[in-house]
């Protein structure tokens, strides 16, 4: 998932196409609905994007912590092995 697209990219083409469509319906309730929808979906995707980032950071930090612990534990046993 390291190369997962940022979720903002999911809406890259949706935004101009929907804005263009809404612009073709001045005065219509559908125009307003499309604008609100776009804004709320954008918000949803931004939050989703932040979750992806947080998960990626948590995985990276977990891997680092496991590696550090593993090295520290190995060092303990190397020391315990002597010479005495």
């Amino acid at each position: 998932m390291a190369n997962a697209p940022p979720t903002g990219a999911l809406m890259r083409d949706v935004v101009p196409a929907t804005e263009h469509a809404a612009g073709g319906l001045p005065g219509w309730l559908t125009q307003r609905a499309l604008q609100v929808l776009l804004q709320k979906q954008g918000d949803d995707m931004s939050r989703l994007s932040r979750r992806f980032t947080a998960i990626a950071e948590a995985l990276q930090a977990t891997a680092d912590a496991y590696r550090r612990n593993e090295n520290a534990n190995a060092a303990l046993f190397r020391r315990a092995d002597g010479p005495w």
Partner: protein
Amino acid sequence: MVTFLELRDAQPTRLGAAADEWLRMAEKLARLETRVVNELTKPLRNSGWAGESADIAFRSFDRLDDELELAARQTRNLATVIRFARTEFVKVQEQLRAVLGAVRRDGLQVDDRGAVQPPSGYVSESLDPIGYQRYRQLIANARAYTDQITTLVRRASQLDGDCARVLMRFEPYSPGRMASGEWRDATGDARSALNLMGMTERNIPAAGSAPQANRAWWDGLSEEHRSLYLAAHPDRVGALDGLPAQQRHDANQMAMRNLIEMRSAADGPTERLTTLLDRLEASEYGPQAQRLYLLGIDNRLDGLGVVSVGNPDTARHLGVAVVPGITVTLDDMNGQIDRAGALRQTADDLTPDVEGDVAVVAWVGYDTPGVVTSPAHGYADTAAPVLDRFVDGTQVAQEAEGTQSHRTVVGHSYGSSVVGLAASQGNGLAVHDIIVAGSPGMRVPDATHLNIDPRHVWAGRASDDPIPVIGPISHGPAPHTEAFGANRFHVDTSGHVDYWRPGSESLRNQAHILVGQYDRVTLDHGRPPR
């Protein structure tokens, strides 16, 4: 309220490109979900990572997976609503343009409110009778055009309001996270969309319809409308025999999530549903050949469930149903899946050239009797036509996939009575082999009444299984007896419920039958097909 000018000057065709982009976004979300499963959840779940942090992480990944799945479906359905709006808005606008064309041809003028002005000047009837007639006609035309324009503007306003209301429903339920009620909200959104388009639940084939009719209805829908029906009425769509297994699975899983949300909201028990859901989801991370497909779910009373281990539409060898016996309910689904899985794996191992060419269905598709009511016939009478339709449905779905499959039905205990009854009625069951184990009787005098060559009827009985001895009092002669005319396969397991013990000869014999290796079945008596 749309005005005349707003309708005249609108550019609704632009909605088409917007709908295309929302659909593309839905496809991207679906691909992202696949990547989350294949590149994140599956490898980590199979890595051996365990402990509290792993548990929390896996739950987080599962929620992410669910959220992407739901977002993909919602976005797809939203695109369908936008496309519908485009079609309808364009239609009204074209009708308006046709009226305006007629106004122009008559040399009349229309004002900014959409009112067509009568011709100016006055023509005397006595001086110019023909001109007067023409003048009178134009006045009438102007009135008629105004009425038509008013009607079209009203129609546009109505459509605009309806479309806007449905579009607003598709707002994210709880932005950035998966909240309880999210699945039910999606179902509500899809129902609104269907209503907007004039499609209702009544269009769905009634319960018990022939699988061919179900499939014809499904195939006649556009992909967009299938997605809407699936989300709007998942329980109804998931129950339709003959539909593709993947789509039945998607529908039933959504229905199950709706049930869990509803019961949670009412503080009701959800354990048997969540246990099954967890198992279904976990199978996504395992081998493809062992993937689970939820083909039926009903949480009422004892509950019903139908789960295929492996894809039944593409399997070359299909164990149509491991029909369970008495007291089995939805609570026992895990055990039934284990049995089906053991039979599937054993059979798949017998055909090592093609991995994953066997699927076996755990069919708890009928209300099973209890211990006291087990001599009763009513349960089997009700279940037999249901089983028959289910089996027909697997055939319809396989044929649609172009799969040539060898189908076998497996009945255990009281389930074998259901199988016997179903096979003996009408044109029988659409299977190539019938296996029964621990049968109390199949409700027929002998194997010739099962609408199948008796050499393809197989019965097994453990030497200490009491049911085939006491059952025939109510359900007819036991099929393991020589007089019945079926092949008796050798059983090396003990008691009434152990016929599917992994590694046993009892199980291996059934697996040989399932894959058509008849000459390798060890028999106590009988004459196997060549």
